């Protein structure tokens, strides 16, 4: 390369990089989806009616506020003019609704929104309307009440309560557990605001009142963040001196989907018996067993002794992190032999962590896996006994060296193999552009003609390694679900939900399950759905908060269509012979323009997922997928596959709103013109009038002038709405995941000659 060429190529690279950066910065990630972001209050008392104000993202044309339990119902709040007040609902909580965590969501133009926790409690509830940022303005609270509040930015909320000496008062705050972004700090201070006790780790304050008097509660965020997304439910409650400390209810972590095992009952559980920290103090047990214990006090080690025979295989499962405790259980099993007067311990197995069955995304620059963790710090493993005799199992908490919390409980099960599985699913994420680390909450709000993919992950119990078929039922009209099974010995499958182009607007709670043959018996297990609590656009700047959902609402918005639909040209089973080449012609239904001429597609589905990425045109209405079955080494059988990739759509947000706004604008203009005409007429009349008539005419002129002013303001407002609608409807580059409809393939055995 000569110098000139070198300069040119460097310039080209720089230009390409700049171009790429420009393109990247101009792109948004993922098409708009309806998201319910806040409700105020975040819950209510059993048997009450509560006025709830909501905020959300792209949730226009609201129809309903819906709840995951039929005991909670809502209707729009009507204003004094009889019209619904925007974003306000009257929510009725039936007296037989179970207390605890429920979920709220709205049905909007684009479909059903992501959900927000709505808690039902038994105590009196109040709502804080104004921040109270000083001791002097502290909001008085009754003991045994719950306050729904939002944190002001860079400030502390103050509350006061009266208490008597020796009363045991619990001050607790639900925040992360009800989807808030807040890391709560709770402080009880004296009447002058001098701090007495503080809790910053998400725990509750257990306060024995030292003297009769007024006390101040301070609440703030660990780093003094604030705003509508930093909401909380603060409880001040008196409890008996000897009552166990119970916390406000909380959502379940994703990891907890694998707990408990099916048909699990704690009725046969036995408690651990302290002291059992040392080998000499080992608690004798017989297998199988189910033990309840706690990692308490600090550096607690629980030692259990049992007799086992060479060749025995036992499965050990511990739940603690999955019970919501911040623990990291670890087990060592050792064989005990005696040499003279000494014991000799031989390690049999060391168990820790249920590893995520699929690689999850690291905290690096770009995605390298899903942003969900199906694993756990708990234990699920196998003990193969190598020698007859006495064995000891020591259970400890790798996080427990210095922590003294008796609530760090665990459940230890040792059992003979009971092969089984547990399933969890989440909407597919993938890297959509350089460095993309979005972790958006993705409600199932389908556009006509779109296919949405879900990753399904199995935690397999006790050696079960068979294939798992996936299915989804109770779907809204026009929506079909096809599961790409989890193959034998593997952990990941795909569920595809497709809305027909003409699928009507609708929503239904779906049933999602997996089916497998275990020891010759068909076993069906539910698949739980996980989602992000917030639409996190960059997981570097905001740590995502995934959780399990209460149920699986599936909806079609009915107002928008997929930018492109890709499907096989015929809805049939495509047949080919093992080792041969299979060609599947694809049809494209293009509904929007794209940035770029082609899109790279990869394949989902066992037997085909190693298909090399291939390009299809984003301009043409057809393409072809070619599979070299010899290279893929796909064995004869029936397969379901789909293609996926990403493309940058020229997306226009709610163009219908422009038409409506234009109409409204024209109408406002017409009304203003009418009023102007009326004013003109009255002015002429007034000129001709005299005496009392003139006075009357002047009054009328004044009245119509007011009307004109209002009409002009209405025109300006309508113009602004039109302008906003037009702006939103301008084509915008948005990159999103494109998934084809599923394709059925049958591979026949090659003929033997």
């Amino acid at each position, binding site marked *: 390369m000569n110098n000139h060429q070198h300069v040119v190529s460097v310039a080209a690279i720089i230009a390409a990089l700049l171009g790429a950066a420009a393109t990247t910065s101009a792109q948004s990630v993922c098409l708009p989806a309806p998201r319910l972001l806040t409700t105020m209050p975040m819950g209510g008392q059993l048997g009450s009616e509560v006025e709830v104000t909501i905020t959300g993202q792209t949730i226009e044309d609201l129809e309903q506020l819906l709840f995951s339990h039929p005991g909670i119902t809502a209707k729009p709040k009507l204003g004094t003019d009889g019209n619904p007040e925007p974003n306000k609902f009257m929510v009725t909580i039936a007296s037989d609704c179970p207390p605890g965590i429920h979920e709220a969501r709205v049905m909007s133009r684009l479909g059903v929104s992501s959900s927000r926790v709505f808690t039902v409690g038994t105590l009196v509830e109040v709502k804080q309307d104004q921040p109270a940022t000083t001791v002097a303005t502290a909001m008085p609270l009754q003991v045994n009440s719950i306050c729904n509040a939002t944190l002001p930015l*860079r400030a*502390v909320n103050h509350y006061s309560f009266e208490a008597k000496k020796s009363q045991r008062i619990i001050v607790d705050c639900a925040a992360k557990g009800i989807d808030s972004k807040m890391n709560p700090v709770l402080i009880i201070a004296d009447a002058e605001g*001098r701090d007495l006790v503080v809790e*910053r780790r998400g725990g509750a304050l257990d306060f024995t009142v030292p003297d009769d008097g007024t006390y101040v509660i301070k609440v703030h965020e660990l780093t003094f963040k604030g705003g509508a997304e930093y909401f909380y439910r603060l409880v001040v409650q008196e409890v008996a001196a000897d009552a166990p400390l119970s916390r406000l209810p909380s959502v379940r972590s994703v990891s907890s989907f694998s707990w408990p095992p099916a048909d699990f009952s704690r009725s046969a559980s036995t408690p651990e018996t302290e002291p059992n920290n040392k080998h000499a103090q080992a608690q004798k047990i017989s297998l199988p067993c189910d033990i309840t214990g706690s990692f308490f006090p600090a550096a607690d080690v629980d030692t259990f002794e049992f007799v086992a025979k060479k060749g025995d295989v036992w499965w050990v499962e511990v739940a603690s992190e999955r019970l919501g405790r911040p623990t990291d259980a670890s087990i060592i099993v050792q064989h005990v032999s005696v040499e003279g007067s000494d014991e000799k311990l031989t390690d049999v197995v060391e168990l820790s962590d249920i590893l995520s069955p699929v690689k999850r995304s690291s905290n690096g620059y770009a995605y390298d896996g899903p942003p969900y963790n199906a694993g756990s710090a708990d234990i699920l493993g196998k003990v193969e006994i190598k020698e007859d005799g006495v064995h000891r199992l020591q259970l*400890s908490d790798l996080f427990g060296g*210095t922590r003294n919390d008796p609530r760090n409980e665990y459940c230890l099960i040792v059992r003979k193999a009971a092969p089984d599985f547990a399933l969890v699913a989440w909407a597919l994420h993938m890297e959509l552009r350089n460095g993309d680390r979005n972790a958006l909450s993705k409600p199932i709000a389908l556009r006509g003609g779109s296919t949405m993919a879900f990753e399904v992950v199995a935690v397999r119990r006790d050696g079960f390694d068979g294939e798992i078929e996936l299915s989804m039922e109770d779907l809204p009209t026009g929506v079909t679900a096809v599961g790409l099974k989890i193959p034998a010995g593997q952990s990941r499958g795909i569920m595809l939900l497709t809305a027909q182009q003409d699928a009507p607007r609708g929503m239904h709670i779906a049933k999602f399950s997996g089916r497998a043959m275990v020891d010759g018996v068909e076993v069906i297990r539910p698949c739980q759905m996980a989602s992000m609590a917030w639409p996190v656009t960059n997981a570097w700047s905001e*740590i995502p908060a995934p959780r399990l959902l209460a149920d699986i609402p599936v909806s079609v918005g009915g107002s928008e269509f997929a930018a492109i639909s890709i499907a096989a040209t015929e809805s049939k089973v495509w047949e080919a012979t093992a080792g041969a080449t299979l060609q599947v012609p694809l049809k494209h239904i293009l509904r929007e323009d794209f940035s770029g001429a082609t899109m790279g597609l990869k394949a989902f589905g066992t037997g085909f997922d190693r298909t090399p990425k291939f390009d299809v045109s984003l301009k043409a209405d057809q393409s072809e997928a070619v599979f070299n079955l010899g290279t893929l080494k796909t064995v004869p059988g029936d397969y379901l596959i789909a293609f996926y990739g990403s493309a940058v759509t020229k997306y226009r947000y709610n163009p219908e709103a422009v038409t409506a706004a234009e109409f409204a604008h024209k109408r406002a203009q017409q009304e203003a013109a009418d009023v102007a005409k009326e004013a003109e007429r009255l002015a002429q009349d007034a000129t001709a009038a005299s005496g009392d008539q003139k006075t009357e005419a002047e009054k009328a002129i004044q009245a119509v002038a007011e009307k004109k002013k209002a009409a002009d303001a209405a025109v300006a407002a309508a113009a602004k709405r039109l302008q906003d609608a037009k702006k939103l409807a301008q084509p915008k580059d948005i990159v999103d995941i494109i998934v084809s409809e599923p394709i059925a393939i049958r591979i026949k055995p090659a003929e033997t000659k």
Partner: protein
Amino acid sequence: MTSRDMDRLQRLVPWHLVGFLLAMLTGALSASAGELERTVSFVNDVIPVLTKAGCNAGGCHGKAGGGQNGFQLSLLGFEPQEDYEHLVLEGRGRRLFPADPDRSLMLMKATGQVSHGGGVRLVATSEGYSLLRQWIQQGKHFNSEGEPDLVSIVVDPARGSVKAHGYQQLKSLAHYSDGSVRDITGLALYECNDDAMAEVTDAGLVTASDIPGKVAVMVRYQGKIAVYSASVPLGAPVETLPASRNFVDELVFANLKELGVPPSPVCDDATFLRRVSIDIGGRLPTETEAREFLASADADKRDRAIESLLRSPDYADYFANKWTALLKNRRDDASDITSNFAFHSWIRDSLLANKPYDQLVRELLAATGTVIANPPVAWYKRVKDPKSQIEDVAQLFLGVRMQCAQCHHHPFERWSQDDYYGLAAFFSQVGRKPTDTRGEDLIFHKRGTAGSKNVKTGLTVKPAALGDNVGEIAPDEDPRLRLADWMSGESNPFFAKALVNRYWKHFFKRGLIEPEDDIRDTNPSTNPELLAALEDHFRKSDFNLKDLVRVIASSHAYQLSAMPNEHNLADRQNYSRYYPKRLQAEVLLDAFHQLTGATTSFANLPAGTRAVALPDNSYNKSSPFLRVFGRPESTSVCECERVQSASLAQSLHLINASDIKSKLATSNGRADRLSKEERPDAEKIGELYMVAFSREPRPDELRIALDYLAQERTDAAGKPVDKTKATRENFEDLVWALTNTKEFLFNH
């Protein structure tokens, strides 16, 4: 070196043999019969000469990574075998020339006969030169059969009293394994722990200055150390002493009596309240507090003021500020904010709850989990390397500096590399897993046998706590817990001592041992009995930090006036008066706010947050005030990172900086408010003095202030300034003048 090694050497350089024979011959001709009887030992004779001459000092040939000009010696001769090889094998054999020892490069360089970057280190007529020469002549033996090992050294006298400007000659003796004793006075190295108090010559002659107190001279020889401790009495009559309120007083006053240093009287109430509020709460007393305190006739009002301060969150904020800087709570990345806030708050809340100190340290050392669930984990985010971990832990919690021992035997201490790696082994089972936060790991105990590899020997060293055996640690046990057990154990000689010394320094400006985190046999306390009593008290109180503060602050020793009497001006270490301290950056800024009524808005914190409550160093960037007054950047476990010295920049800042001006003129600030209030100026001046100094103005001060306030002001053109504006500016000037007084800037 074994004889086989020697053979190998001599086969490599056969002419050495010739030289050896020649040397034997010429030596026999020139040396006396007596000299020939003793073979010069490389280890016991040559190395001490090289050390005394400074050849193997860190700045010379002892410098790590090659020494000087291609000639490397081990630091201070701690590795004689390596030194032997460097001298004998390297340099193409030119360094030593047995055939004509005086022409050996080593001697020619050392005497400056050929160019030597280190200058003349030996003169040809010196005893050292003659020893080296003799060693070369005798054949450069590494050692000889039955050569004794050095066992210990002693200095005579070990203790004593030297009058001001008086002398004391020290005699140093080396004791060997065969029972022999050698006078090493001329070969040993001497170093005084306080050069202002005494000087010591190379020959061991100690000269005291006129500063009374305790001084120590460290004597070093071949890795062995001895200490000469001297008291330098003032000898003034000590007729009256304040009443003893507790053991602190008894031991401080006993020392003063012994030295003949009469203490200043106990300070007045105003001084006490201001002093104790700053030292415990990191703030000035409020006007109301000051007036109530001065008006109170309660006999125990000082003790009650201490109790009130200890109960207040101000105490927790102020001491958390101290600890978080030492524990390196640094903001290097915007994403550090959560862990930094959590860590700072953990310390602050622990102090508020008066968590026992041993428990606090235990939770830090053995932290596991995530930062949010267990904030001390954040320390492992800041201090990642096990070596840094033990160095920080040793210096901060034990007052022991281990850094040297990573590569070589500690020159002033007994710590070896095995001690270093034995301590590092406690941290060898710290497991890490990445979290969703960039750069932040969760910490867990990784099962396994703890051990750390000594990089020098290549051997794995088991956990050992500075020479103490902590027993076998099972693979399941977190060794850090065992370290924490050892630290708070009854026989631990460092842990409690380091803390009480650190806190003593906080209140008295000077530690009983200085620097406060360099506790070693060779750096003794200025009042060992007091240090021992404080240590004992702290341990018996179950490491109760508030109680320690209470004991110190309630003593009359702490409450002495800062004004010297005719005798104790020179006293700098016996606490015969209170040594004034410049307010530290954060306290000064808060005091400035308190007086002016202004505030500083700190990012991510509520309005009105005090500077002493700032969680990390990131606020230094936006506050020129904090920077110029030396707020630390949390990069070091040493309190010395906080700059407490005065500088021109500080003076200029207070006099003329724009942020100071704007604070003085802040709307609704104190000057603004006072200028608008309808009450006598004398009352307003009283308010200012009460806030700034916790006292009423003296008559002369009041007169000056009243005269100033009554002055009319003119603008640049000489025209009278509007009266309202003039009054406000006069008050601003008055506040400005008060903030620039030493009485305001210092705790006294």
